[in-house]
């Protein structure tokens, strides 16, 4: 295996923290929803770069195509027609992995090294370690990962980790013709978002704001929303995403408790062996059994 190009900050099913000798800048992708025209160039560029080709679907009466994320479509445009105080609005959101600082998928994953978080913030799936259990799908607060029917492994947006590792921007960012998607350090993206939010407020979107939810420790894919007070308008973007309590419980308190249980059982066994010794059958009992058997005959 080649040397790592990026240090690993977190690793699934691994309780020891990964040591981080190198510091890499935190990267982020900023999606300015107010600038998106829904052309889907990002969807095409994603498929081209990652060598994916989804099946041709059918029309469900909206522009959503494909209708949902799949193992071959790591990003989809979601079109929502909503009535707001400004009248009918067409809100188009590019959906895909949010690259959480505290990833629910990674926390839920039971397979060591199948999900890693690099030191630059990218959350990546490693299919060679994936066991296809689907816990990441349950653990994700944004319902993003999908299991492939071909190889039963989980797939999602990698934030083009292979491009970012060599200093390039993700394919969707490069292709975007309206400049709605931008990429840079998380700090720079925060600054860019502030500028855009100020511009939107000036134009009458008083509730404009940045979507960088604290419930998952912030995300490395952020949105500028014109209605930041109601993220649900954007095809059900969760207002306050957090890792499900089931996952937190199972991977939090349950794990050490179960370990303590296993240890106690082993210790109990040892004590029993030391104090009582092996469970031998005494000669008297053996003689009794022999007698009974003879009696039956």
């Amino acid at each position: 295996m080649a040397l790592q190009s990026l240090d690993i900050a977190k690793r699934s099913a691994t309780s020891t923290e990964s040591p981080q000798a190198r510091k890499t800048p935190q990267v982020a992708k900023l999606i300015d929803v107010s600038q998106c025209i829904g052309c889907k160039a990002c969807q095409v560029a994603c498929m081209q770069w990652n060598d994916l080709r989804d099946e041709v679907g059918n029309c469900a009466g909206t522009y959503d195509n494909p209708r949902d994320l799949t193992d071959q479509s790591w990003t989809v445009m979601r079109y929502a027609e909503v009535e707001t105080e400004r009248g009918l609005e067409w809100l188009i959101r590019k959906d895909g992995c949010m690259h959480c600082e505290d990833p629910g998928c990674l926390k839920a994953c039971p397979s060591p090294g199948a999900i890693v978080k690099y030191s630059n913030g990218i959350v990546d799936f490693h299919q060679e370690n994936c066991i296809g259990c689907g816990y990441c799908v349950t653990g994700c607060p944004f319902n993003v990962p999908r299991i492939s029917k071909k190889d039963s492994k989980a797939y999602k947006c990698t934030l083009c980790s292979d491009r970012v590792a060599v200093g390039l921007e993700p394919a969707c960012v490069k292709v975007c013709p309206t400049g709605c998607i931008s990429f840079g350090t998380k700090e720079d993206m925060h600054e860019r978002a502030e500028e855009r939010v100020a511009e939107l407020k000036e134009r009458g979107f008083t509730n404009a704001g940045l979507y960088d939810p604290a419930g998952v420790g912030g995300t490395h894919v952020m949105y500028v929303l014109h209605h930041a007070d109601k993220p649900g308008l954007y095809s059900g973007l969760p207002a306050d995403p957090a890792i499900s309590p089931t996952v937190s419980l199972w991977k939090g308190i349950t794990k050490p408790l179960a370990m303590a249980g296993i240890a106690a059982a082993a210790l109990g066994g040892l004590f029993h062996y030391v104090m009582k010794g092996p469970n031998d059958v005494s000669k008297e009992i053996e003689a009794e059994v022999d007698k009974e058997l003879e009696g039956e005959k």
Partner: protein
Amino acid sequence: MQVSRRGFFKVCAAGMSGSSLVAMGFAPTAALAEVRTFKLARTTETRNTCPYCSVGCGIIMYSLGDGAKNVHASIMHIEGDPDHPVNRGTLCPKGAGLLDFVHSKNRLKYPEVREPGSKEWKRITWDEAFSRIANLLKEDRDVNFVARNDDGVTVNRWLTTGFLAASASSNESGYITHKVVRSLGMLAFDNQARV
């Protein structure tokens, strides 16, 4: 398979200790992970213009191999050209999907003709195509060219043939096309500005 009582306990103990070790973080695999290898590292880059609309976005085509004698180059990826002043690396969804257009089974790779009354497309050579077009243009122009109108005013017009030019032409080829078409007297002249 026969498993003895003793064997069964052994297997159970081994399984439990193994899974406990993993659960405690002593995973048997090395803590390494590598991103997917960058697929364009040694490809040949060729600049071109997107063939779709008249915006004329710059593209870079990445092809297999380094141009060595025995390599049959094949385009394996296409991206916007970040140094091109028109699009600065961006592309529309059609431009972004150019790779599939290049490798499409339906792509037209040579001139074909469907003659009047025929149902079949027939493959012809470029020379045949050029000669055929030139001959048909000349035949039509010889018959229908109008040098003067009914009042005797010189008009030099040719109304029976039209010309549809390409969209992604450079300024220079656009200028030459215009000169050629207008100097023939052709009036119906348009360009395919969008697809």
